[in-house]
């Protein structure tokens, strides 16, 4: 606790809620200010500076509220029947912390990065609005306020997705995004409808206590999974995500991927863990299955992408899958009376949510830096950036290692906890879970390994090797602000990785009310280790591993340089004796992916390779064409699109009738109704 506890005292009881509301208001005001400033150059530092400051306040407020008693208030706004309920409990507080942390980083990054925005008036007004809307979702205490913020969040981010509207792809991305977002909102609306009942008990406080039949919570679970899942990017509701996240400016992509998906996770937790009542034994099953499938398919597709931001977007899907595996386990444990294990699983999920916010924002910042420096995000055109962008390449390396779940970084810490939770699951009695959990564990492990492959590819192709285009060769390091933001996030990744204990402890006030149990206190464990269950079961000490690695590497370097050789000679690359000066001879992103593509994607994504070889004597280059399709599109969205197309085609016939035929319709309607009357009992 330490410092954070004293901060909590400083802000005081329930005042954090007031601060949170002021934060939201301030975001709104900044948004209006940005609108007024338009294209003026002063707008950028002003808007992003203000956003950073406000988000910092929000962060502090979240931190404070984490150790505070829940506070609630009713404002005379929003839904007139009940007013706007706002409340701040530890769950909200944690996510406020995450959101505003990402907000601070993105705002700072944007102070520099935004300089290259050619239409700032299409981004700046929506940026603070986006942050404000996410905060609003988190403090919402009734269904209307929640969905209001939720949809506003989609809307603001949509506006930024279509900010660069001259590219047709962005418009398409925006369209798919906003439709899917609204679909999700409607699903949540239905979930809330069931919880609120016909009397209109829309306030969360009233929902939680309402008795329900057996079926209602189950339907709520399904709706929440679909509604929040579509926002978070669960397969097969993920299709918008890899289109929309990359389309936005990079600092917005970072927020969308790193932060907004967390708001979706919050929505799921709020509805399922808090409002829907005690879980049934099987609730974990759909969540686990969705999480496992999402994690694996997400990262597999990430592996196949050539665009750096699309890689990151698909990787977001993977991480959402990991988070949902944690949540699913927590539900399974709680539903089967294993609260302690549930606390571990939920902690793992939340920890991973925090981690993902950190490293995914970092990676998107890096991608933005690359985009800014080279003008392209196409991996096939990059290479060798480590020479031209020293800082960016270091922080990207940290981010890549963290997201690949490599110890001693933070990604590993949370995945380790998830694995520990899986190892507790033999205690679960139901057969369905017994069969599912190991399979999900395998999927998760597969996802982790593929993630490493994916980020080796991203980093190795993008940053290492030789430049594959003039743009990459002429890249330059990005500005101070951007570097600062990236360095800050990279530092946090390392810190959260080597000191997982304090993070876990901080999460316990969030977990305890939701699960009814908490993990053992980690601060009491010697050497800052973490011991999630019992000492003899498992423990991990990131700090020590980190120190060991540093010492070993340092020692090795020292000894070798001291006692062996320190001579170094630069020479042309050896390459088995046939070095080629042409960077085009390097492995490309698609050739790197080829083995995994062949192994995993041939069946699942119908990945095909088509090689066209010119006839002998023809000097034109050979071509390879790679195709794959997402089964979600093939099986779900394309048919839906076609169905709507057919429906509109059919319905449209009604637009071209003659007056007589229209009269005929009226006449038919009349006759029909009269017939109904005639046969009415």
């Amino acid at each position, binding site marked *: 606790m330490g410092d954070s506890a004293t901060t909590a005292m400083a802000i005081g009881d329930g005042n954090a809620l007031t601060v949170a509301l002021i934060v939201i208001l301030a975001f709104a005001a900044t948004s209006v200010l940005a609108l007024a400033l338009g294209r003026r150059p002063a707008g950028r530092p002003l808007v992003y500076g203000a956003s950073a400051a406000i988000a910092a306040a929000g962060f502090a407020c979240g931190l404070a509220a984490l150790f505070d008693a829940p506070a609630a208030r009713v404002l005379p706004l929003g839904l007139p029947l009940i007013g706007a309920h706002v409340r701040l409990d530890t769950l909200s507080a944690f996510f406020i912390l995450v959101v505003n942390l990402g907000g601070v980083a993105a705002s700072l990054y944007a102070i520099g990065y935004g300089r290259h925005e050619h239409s700032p008036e299409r981004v700046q007004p929506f940026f603070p609005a986006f942050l404000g809307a996410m905060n609003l979702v988190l403090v919402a205490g009734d269904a209307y306020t929640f969905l209001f913020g939720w949809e506003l969040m989609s809307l603001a981010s949509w506006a930024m997705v279509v900010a660069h509207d001259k590219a047709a792809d962005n418009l398409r991305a925006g369209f798919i995004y906003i439709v899917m977002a609204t679909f999700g909102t409607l699903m949540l609306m239905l979930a809330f409808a069931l919880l609120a009942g016909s009397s209109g008990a829309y306030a969360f406080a009233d929902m939680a206590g309402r008795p329900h039949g057996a079926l209602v919570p189950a339907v709520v679970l399904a709706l929440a999974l679909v509604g929040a899942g579509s926002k978070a990017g669960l397969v097969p509701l993920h299709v918008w995500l890899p289109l929309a996240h990359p389309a936005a400016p990079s600092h917005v992509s970072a927020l969308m991927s790193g932060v907004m998906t967390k708001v979706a996770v919050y929505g799921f937790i709020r509805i399922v863990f808090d409002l829907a009542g005690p879980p049934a034994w099987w609730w974990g099953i759909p969540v686990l299955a969705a999480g496992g499938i999402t994690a694996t398919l997400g990262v597999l597709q990430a592996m196949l992408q050539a665009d750096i931001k699309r890689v990151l977007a698909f990787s977001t899907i993977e991480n959402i899958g990991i988070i949902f595996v944690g949540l699913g386990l927590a539900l399974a444990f709680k539903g089967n009376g294993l609260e302690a294990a549930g606390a571990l699983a939920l902690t793992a999920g939340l920890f991973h949510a925090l981690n993902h916010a950190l490293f995914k924002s970092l990676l998107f910042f890096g991608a933005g830096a690359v985009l800014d420096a080279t003008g392209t995000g196409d991996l096939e055109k990059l290479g060798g950036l480590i020479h031209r962008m020293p800082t960016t390449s270091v922080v990207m390396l940290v981010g890549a290692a963290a997201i690949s779940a490599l110890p001693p970084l933070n990604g590993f810490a949370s995945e380790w906890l998830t694995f520990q939770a899986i190892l507790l699951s033999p205690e679960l009695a139901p057969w369905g879970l017994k069969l599912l959990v190991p399979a999900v564990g395998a999927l998760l492990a597969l996802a982790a390994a593929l993630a490493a492959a994916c980020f080796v590819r991203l980093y190795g192709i993008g940053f290492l090797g030789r430049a594959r285009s003039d743009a990459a060769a002429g890249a330059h390091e990005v500005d101070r602000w951007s570097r600062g933001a990236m360095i800050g996030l990279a530092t946090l990744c390392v810190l959260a990785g080597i000191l997982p204990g304090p993070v876990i402890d901080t999460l316990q006030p969030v977990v305890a009310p939701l699960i009814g149990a908490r993990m053992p206190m980690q601060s009491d464990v010697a050497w800052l280790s973490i011991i999630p269950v019992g000492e003899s079961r498992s423990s991990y000490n990131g700090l020590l591993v980190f120190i060991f690695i540093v010492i070993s590497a340092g020692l090795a370097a020292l000894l070798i340089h001291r006692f062996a050789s320190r001579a170094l000679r630069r020479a042309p690359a050896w390459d088995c004796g046939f070095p080629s000066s042409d960077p085009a001879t390097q492995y490309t992103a698609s050739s790197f992916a080829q083995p995994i593509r062949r192994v995993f994607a041939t069946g699942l994504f119908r990945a095909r390779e088509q090689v066209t070889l010119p006839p002998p004597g023809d000097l034109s280059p050979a071509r390879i064409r790679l195709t794959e399709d997402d089964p979600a599109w093939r099986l779900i969205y394309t048919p839906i699109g076609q169905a709507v197309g057919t429906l509109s085609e059919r319905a449209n016939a009604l637009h071209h009738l003659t007056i*007589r035929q229209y009269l005929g319709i*009226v006449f038919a309607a*009349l006759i029909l109704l*009269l017939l109904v009357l005639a046969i*009415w009992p």
Partner: protein
Amino acid sequence: MPQPIFPHLVFDVAHLLAGAMVLISLMMLYQGRLNALIKVFALQAVALAASVAWQAQAQHAPHLYVTAVIAIAFKGVVIPVALHRMVARLGIHRQVETALATGPTMLAGIGLVALALVVMLPVTATSDPLAREDLAFALSVVLLGLLMMVTRRNAVSQIIGFMSLENGLILAAAGARGMPLVVEISVAFSVLIAFIVIGVFLFRIRERFDTVDVDALDRFRGGRA
């Protein structure tokens, strides 16, 4: 108010006249040529006038005579004459353009009359039986008028169908005991307006398209690309 001397007589005559209107409606469905149609329509207007006048007498509602006069003057005389001229001027008096053959149309018409009767059946006996029967016939006339509008391609016959429909309305209104005068005047008023506007449009339509076939208008429908 003294009791009518022959209550059944009142009933029978009203019944007869209303029934006659239904019959005329069916006749109109049967007509192929425009001139004949207009004549039958005029006949229906006369029947309507008689029916309304009978109601005026039966209900001791003298204001209904006004309606009767309006009916006979406008629909019996003025409009048929005008329509004849229009048809002559447009040179379409020989045109027969039905969308549905006469046989099925007649069958449908008879079905509609049956439907109107069935629908009126559950109306409880507490209601004025006179009104009830009248209503059933009025409803039949309304439905037959609509049927005519639906099965005819020609604008003039559509107008006639529409006015036949209005005849049904007036029959119903006149049958409703004590229905305030306001309504009848309004009815007449709106029929007048309706006719004027239709006339205006017909004029324009002829001017622009040289035809009054409604289907021809559809070629100019915006939004069809």
